[in-house]
Every structure is written in structure tokens, then in C-alpha cells.
């Protein structure tokens, strides 16, 4: 039972790191990056390739995060900024196009077969938790997710940019008056969101089998997390990720083939109760 909860936390943690990137970008630009799951997948593959080449997981992680951050800067420059005055659906359609291109590119480079990456040596063992043995690497993922959550909330509270992002996700007009340079903030925020997707992807590589469609199921769950949490809400996404993580794990253990359907049913339930998600304001 304890192990199950911990495993749920692992998946919930990965999901949180990914989903919070979506929330960051949404808060600032009012658009949803449909290619976010693909960034996760690209992060996993890049991490895999570099880690395998150098024989060192941490190098792979570092390169992947850096590369994805760069990709984020690029995305902001060619997609989010030029399209900021258009209807949000235009950006959504374009990022959906990017998703299809990235998925195909990865399929072409690495093939359709499942690949796997070993966890780093130092974390390869198991630890004893209340008499049960639990893989050290999984514990590392939980700690990492917690660290990201804490770091991010400090950043959002303390820094100027963080303040701006929080203000902008609540009220657009006030922030426009504040006179902050949205474009500069946007580069940093989109890069951070993409880097988090890369982090989540690489970290998940030793846990999940790598396949070009891995971006698909995680995108579903992260979308559900974001919608259930209330579009644009950081705390909502945090709690939703924890819940979906547990549910997902429960599903994988007891009804593996229908695992993707369970979070989905939860989402429908929550939306019946609160159409704007649990942190969302009523419109």
C-alpha cells in the first residue's frame, strides 16, 4: 500500500513538473502549448541519447534541460510572440502542428521501438522505507518534484518576473498598466516551461519505456491536470497532479488497459461539479 502511494507520487511528480510548464505559459500568454507533451518526449530522447553516448546520466539530464530551454526561446520567438495578437486558437493549432512534426521527427531518428535508459549508478539501489524496499531513483524523482514545486513557488513569490507572472495570470489589465516588458518575461517563462518539460522527460526516461508516442499519454494526463486544477492555477495544478498520479498508478495496477480512462472520468466528474476546475473562478 505504501509502495503504491509512493509510486503514485512518482508519476504525480513527473506530471506536476510537466503541467506547471503549461500553467506558466498559459498564465502569461493565455494560450496552451499543445506541443508540450512532445517537448517532454524530445527531452526524454535527447537525455537518452546524450546519457548513452557519454555513459553518464547527469550529463544527459543537463544537456536535455539546456537544449529544451533553447527550444523554448526559439518557440517563443517564432510562435508565441508573433501570434500574441491573434485568437488563442491560432497558437493552439500551430503548436498542435508542431506536436505532429516533432512526433514524426523522433520516430524517424530513433525508430518506433521501445528504448530504455538505466538510472544513474548512484541511485540504482533501493532504500528501506518503513520496512519496504523502494528504488532509490524513484525516491529521487519524488524529491526532485518537491524541489521544483518549492523552488517555483519561491521564484513566483520573490522575483519580479514571478510576481508579474502571478499577477498576469489573475488580471491582465493591471499587468499591462504595470509596464513590464511582456516579451522579455515571456522568453524566460517559455524557456523555463520547456526546460521543465525536458527535465520531466529525461527524468522519466529510466522509469517509462521511450517511444515516440510517450508524449501522447502524458499530454492527456497533464491536460487533465491543468483543466481539473483550473486553467492558470499553480496550486490547482499541484493538487490535481497528486490526485491524478495516485489514480493513474491505481489504474495501472488494477485495470491496466483502461488506465488512461480513469483520470478522464475524474475530470468529467470534477467539471460537472465545477466547470472552471477547482481553483477556477466562476465566469
Amino acid at each position: 500500500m505504501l509502495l503504491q502511494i509512493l509510486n503514485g507520487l512518482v508519476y504525480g511528480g513527473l506530471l506536476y513538473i510537466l503541467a506547471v510548464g503549461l500553467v506558466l505559459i498559459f498564465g502569461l500568454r493565455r494560450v496552451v502549448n499543445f506541443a508540450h507533451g512532445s517537448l517532454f518526449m524530445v527531452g526524454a530522447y535527447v537525455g537518452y541519447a546524450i546519457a548513452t553516448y557519454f555513459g553518464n546520466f547527469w550529463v544527459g539530464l543537463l544537456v536535455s534541460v539546456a537544449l529544451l530551454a533553447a527550444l523554448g526561446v526559439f518557440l517563443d520567438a517564432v510562435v508565441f510572440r508573433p501570434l500574441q495578437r491573434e485568437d488563442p486558437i491560432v497558437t493552439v493549432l500551430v503548436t498542435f502542428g508542431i506536436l505532429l512534426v516533432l512526433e514524426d521527427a523522433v520516430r524517424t531518428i530513433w525508430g518506433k521501438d521501445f528504448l530504455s535508459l538505466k538510472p544513474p549508478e548512484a541511485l540504482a539501489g533501493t532504500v528501506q522505507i518503513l520496512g519496504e524496499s523502494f528504488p532509490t531513483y524513484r525516491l529521487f524523482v519524488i524529491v526532485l518534484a518537491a524541489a521544483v514545486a518549492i523552488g517555483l513557488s519561491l521564484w513566483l513569490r520573490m522575483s519580479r518576473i514571478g510576481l508579474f507572472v502571478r499577477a498576469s495570470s489573475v488580471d491582465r489589465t493591471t499587468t499591462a498598466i504595470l509596464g513590464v516588458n511582456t516579451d522579455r518575461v515571456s522568453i524566460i517563462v517559455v524557456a523555463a516551461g520547456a526546460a521543465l518539460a525536458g527535465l520531466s522527460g529525461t527524468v522519466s526516461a529510466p522509469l517509462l519505456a521511450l517511444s515516440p508516442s510517450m508524449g501522447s499519454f502524458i499530454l492527456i494526463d497533464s491536460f487533465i491536470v491543468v483543466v481539473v486544477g483550473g486553467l492558470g492555477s499553480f496550486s490547482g495544478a499541484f493538487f490535481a497532479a497528486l490526485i491524478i498520479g495516485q489514480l493513474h498508478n491505481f489504474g495501472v495496477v488494477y485495470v491496466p488497459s483502461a488506465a488512461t480512462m480513469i483520470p478522464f472520468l475524474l475530470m468529467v466528474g470534477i467539471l460537472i461539479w465545477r466547470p472552471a476546475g477547482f481553483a477556477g473562478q466562476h465566469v
Partner: protein
Amino acid sequence: MSQPSERIALPAAPRLALVSRQVWLALGIAIVAGSMLPLVVTSTLAITLLTQAVIGGILATAVGLVIRQTGLVSFGHAAFFGLAGYFIALPAKHGLWPLELSIVLAIAMPTLLAFLLGLVIVRIPGVAFSMITLAIGQAFHEFAVRARLVTGGDDGLAINLPRTVFGVATEVFQRPQTMFVICWVALVGLLFGLHLLVRSRFGRVTTAIRENEERARFLGYQTVVPRALIFALSALIGSIAGTLFALYNGFVSPESLHWSLSGSALIMAIVGGTRLLWGPALGAVVFFFFKDVAGDLTEHWPAMIGFMLIVVTVALPTGIGGALTKLFDRIRPAGVRRDG
């Protein structure tokens, strides 16, 4: 069409007859010309492509209808298309009941599902709706891939078709020359039905809801059920496309549920434009023509779809249909507008 003099006397209401003479004429010509096409186009390859285009056109019409009448963009219509296929393939595999019943269920069940879902999801604002439809579509895809024992996983399922379907030889559904005519008549019939629908009170009220949901409520209109009905109707059309596709190919696979199919349908709808009812279908023809030209590149078809989606969205926001409408508007005297 009303008389010109009447229009001057009553500038307020260009009272259109429910079905104008032009529309009857267009309907007649479309059905006759479409039925003759296989006699003219003798290349089996071309007629195969056209059949696919028409089935794609029906799916695109479904996606376009939701955009046109609710302003919401669905990224998951492949779900209804693919589900219809599985509703035909699975009972046939186990010999549960006659194919005719499967066809009815293949159309009815996705429609019902869409209605119930619609009651929940049409209430949520634009982008979230798109996210959820994408998630729903992909959840079904994942399910079909993983539930190997039931669905055959990635390999898909061959459909054991009986000798006749509704008394018609099954061959008729699988030969491109004859199937083209069936699909074409279905498409034209659906477009005609939608033409009536958007002019009906229900159609006009849903347009008003799309334009301003809050004001519609303050005029006394329920706004959730009508939008859920549009979503269900759209799923009905999408599952008709899926049914035709399954009968034509005698095969279903998770690809028919994949988001790249939902994306293709969106491209067709955007290329053709959604202001005109027949825009998405027109977009489908352009799309499949492009697919044919792309030829060898089809190995990277999903990437091509993605690329096209980007180009089309940025370059042609109102689609070919939108460009044509603008042209018509310029020709026609100012102030008289046609919607649809």
C-alpha cells in the same frame, strides 16, 4: 429567393424561402454529377482517392459544424470516427449480432456519448474545450492500442463482412466506383440537411449562442443543451464517416482514432473555411489532392499534416471558403449578407 422589389419594400428581412430554387438546383446537379463521375473518371486510383476525400470531407464537415455553430474547436473528432469502426468490427469478430444492427449502433453510440460529454464540456471556455477533446480522442487511441486482447492493438482488426448489408451486396461498399457514389450522396445529403438546420430556429439560436452566450441566456435561452446537441450532431456525422470508412476498407486500426486524423479533419475544415457549410468538404478535396502530390513523402505523413496545419492556420485563417465569401460579398450589393 424573395423578389427584389419585396426586398426593397421590406429592407428589414430578406425573407429567404427555407429552400431556395438555387439550392434545389445545386442539390440536383450535385447528386447527378457525382453519380456520373465514376463513368467519366476511369482511373481506379483517382476514384479511390476521391472516395477517401469524400469520406474525409464528411468528417471535416463534422468538425466544421462545431466551429461554425458553437465557436469551439474540437481536436478529438477522430474518437467518433474510430469508435464507429470498432462498433462495427468488434461485434462482427465475435459474431454477436447482424452487421445492420452494428451500423446503427456505430452511429448511435458515439452520438449519445458526445451528447453526454457535451453537456459537461461545452460549458468550459474555448482553449480548455480544445484540450479536453484532444485528451478524450487520445484516451480512446491509447485504449485501443493497449487493450490488445479486445482490439488487436496496433495491428487492428479485419472486419468479417457478410455477403449483403441492408440487402445490398457488400462488394458495392468496397468497390471504389460504387462506394464513391454512396459516400458522395451521403455527403450531399448531410450538407443539405445542415443547410436546413442552420436556417431553422434551432440553427439560428445556436448561432446567437455562439455569438454571445451570456446575452442569449438573458433572452431566456438555455445555452448548454443546444450546444451539446450540436456537438452530438457533429459526432453523428463523424461516426457516419467512420462507418463508411470501415465498410469501405473492411478494417479498423487505432490509427483511425489517432490525433493526426483529428488534425487532418481540422486542416480540411480550416483550408475550406467554416463560414460556408460546404467549405470543409472542399478543403478535404484540396487536402487529398495535396496528399496525392506529396506521394513518396507520405511516409512522413503526420509531419506533413503538422506542417500544413501551421501554414494553413497562419496563411489562410478564413480558408478558401472565406476568401470566396469575401469575393461574393464584394460582388453583391452592400448590406445583403448571406450566412452559410
